[in-house]
């Protein structure tokens, strides 16, 4: 059914459709509306879940860790400082192979404190062993949220659904909220065979010494790599049911013979889609990278075949290095025959607006050449801040 909903509200509805056993979250802008909406659904009797009103994000993550280990479908959500406070637990959840789903309402990280959108938070936990899926719009976010439980439970890996704070979470859009029946068919009840159970008393979270630690890391790496095919399959199945894809690992739009491409993640993809439609610019391919972890190297390479230039858009940066996605794409394409020339810029940091006009500016980057830079930097303002 088509409904006009705020992004956060839609996510709450999607989560409810997945019938989580335990939800734990702590307020932080711009995620707050999600936990508020879930609380309301619970209060109204529309969602039957154990909602744990924790005293911190650290405990939110710990609660879902425990709940998942005890065999309940578990969900949490956070942003920015909250994600960082969770960090230790996030590594634990993946290391223990627990299928937790979390929404990251992406936001910048202080100091200086800033509540607006960029990708610094999810990037900071890039190596935590979670699957990270980025959403271009709220429909994708709804669909990805539902898929995330399927992926997580099939792979026993945690999934972080990244959606841009405010831009998506606080925006009213008309979107399709699937039927409960459909979701029930798509997402079977959670069965966890390592569940904490007095009838089968396992010990989870053991100490592993040097004799075996490399093997555990290897297995974690393999598990993430192999999850790529699950992500694709699960999205294809969803498409068969609903007619909508949430973007697989990576989706590519634009003319086949374009010589320039732009790779981006998150809501800017929607902005660029619109710009491609309504602004006259040179023909270009838009690559929406949905799966940042696992990074689909093969899919990226084939999407880049035939391109001369590729502009990689980052929404965060690694000071002293540059763009994080950019660096990774360079690595992914290194050694590729006839690889495009790669340019890397960061835009929209800490909520700086990314207007439609950004699209032609991006296509212009190869002409200007040069290394990584913040494209929408306003140099005149630097004097005040240095």
């Amino acid at each position, binding site marked *: 059914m088509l409904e006009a909903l705020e992004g956060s509200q839609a996510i709450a509805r999607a989560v409810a459709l997945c019938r989580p056993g*335990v939800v734990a979250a702590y307020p932080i802008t711009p995620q707050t509306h999600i936990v508020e909406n879930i609380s309301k659904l619970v209060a109204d009797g529309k969602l039957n879940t154990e909602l744990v009103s924790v005293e911190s994000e650290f405990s939110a993550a710990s*609660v879902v860790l*425990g709940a998942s*280990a005890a065999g309940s479908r578990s969900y949490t959500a956070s942003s920015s400082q909250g994600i960082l406070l969770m960090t230790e637990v996030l590594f634990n959840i993946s290391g223990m192979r627990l299928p937790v789903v979390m929404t990251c309402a992406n936001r910048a990280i202080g100091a200086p404190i800033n509540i607006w959108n960029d990708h610094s938070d999810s990037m900071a936990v890039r190596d935590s062993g979670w699957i990270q899926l980025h959403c271009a719009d709220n429909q994708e976010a709804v669909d990805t949220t539902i898929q995330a439980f399927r992926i997580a439970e099939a792979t026993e890996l945690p999934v972080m659904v990244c959606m841009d704070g405010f831009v998506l979470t606080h925006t009213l859009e008309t979107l399709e909220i699937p039927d409960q029946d459909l979701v029930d068919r798509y997402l079977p009840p959670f069965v966890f065979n390592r569940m904490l159970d007095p009838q089968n008393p396992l*010990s*989870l979270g053991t100490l592993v010494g040097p004799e075996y630690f490399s093997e555990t890391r290897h297995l974690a790496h393999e598990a993430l790599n192999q999850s790529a095919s699950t992500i694709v399959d699960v999205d294809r199945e969803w498409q068969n049911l609903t007619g909508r894809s949430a973007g697989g690992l990576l989706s590519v739009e634009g003319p086949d013979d374009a010589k320039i491409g732009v790779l981006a993640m998150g809501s800017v993809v929607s902005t660029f889609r619109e710009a491609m439609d309504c602004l006259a610019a040179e023909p270009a391919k838009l690559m929406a990278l949905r799966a940042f972890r696992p990074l689909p190297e093969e899919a990226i390479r084939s999407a880049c075949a035939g391109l001369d230039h590729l502009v990689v858009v980052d929404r965060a940066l690694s000071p002293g290095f540059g763009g994080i996605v950019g660096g990774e794409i360079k690595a992914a394409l290194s050694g590729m025959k006839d690889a495009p020339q790669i340019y890397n810029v960061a835009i929209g940091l800490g909520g700086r607006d990314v207007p439609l006009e950004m699209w032609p500016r991006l296509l212009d980057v190869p002409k200007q050449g040069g290394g990584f830079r913040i494209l929408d930097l306003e140099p005149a303002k630097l004097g005040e801040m240095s």
Partner: protein
Amino acid sequence: MSEMNDPRARQPRFRGLEAGHRACQGCGEALAARLVTESAGPDVILTNATGCLEVFTTPWPQSAWRVPWLHSLFENSAAIASGVEAALKAQGRRSKVIAMGGDGGTFDIGFQALSGMLERMHNVLYVCYDNEAYMNTGIQRSGSTPHAARTTTSPPGKERMGKRHLKKDLLSIIAAHHIPYAASASVAYPQDLRRKVRRAMEIDGPTFLLVHSPCPLGWGHDGSETIQVARLAVQTGLFPLVELERGEVASVMPLRQRVPVAEYLCRQARFRHLFADDDHRAQEEREHLQALADYNIERYGLDGDGDDPFDADGADTIRRGGPANS
């Protein structure tokens, strides 16, 4: 094992913690965990903070636990226990959740998660194995380390006499959460400990147990003296055994006779500097610790009036066939 075939399998009591764990010889924490899990029975799920107990019980691929057990981090035992409990509720399962942590994981780094768990009234028994320092990392001071004790981060020297600060009064803080039941116990009084575990297990709601658990390595006493040392801590008044219901003192283990704290201190290397002949500060600190014990005795009214089978002299009495007070 020649004497009877497989007597281990036929023990007339439940074993939550199995042999083959790697605790030091005479470890009070291992004993405490054994006693707690034994009394709690098989229908439990445990969570465990990082610390000695976690490390010595679960070096992969082995585990000494016979009940489901979950370890995550140093500071989140109470929080993961909250999650486990929430999941059980969601699933309609009725097993009791027991969260466990050392004093470091409870008094200090895990305190916030614990407070949250108590405030949210989770049906969890939290057990703190209090060995009064961070033992797993090599004996560093914690909020629970007694005043004047030597640890590797509170060494005595020209300018210091061991830990400068006092042992945190955790129980009072717990009491302020107004939870149904909180108690302190000691490995020296296993019957009392068992009774307290059973009492806590019966309650549907958050409960808390602080179990004094000597660490031979960290306290510097022989592994064979663990019980003696623990008993003296109670008998001197330094570690009062009390029960709190909704934050109010409901009962205490009275002392039949006050044992001077020096008798407790002199058995442990961590207090050895308090017996230096040529240092006036030594006597001062001994007196300070005596005054702290006297303060506890006064505050909780520990002085007994006449012999009581449940006082600190009577509570561990045995008779043929078992403890006299069971």
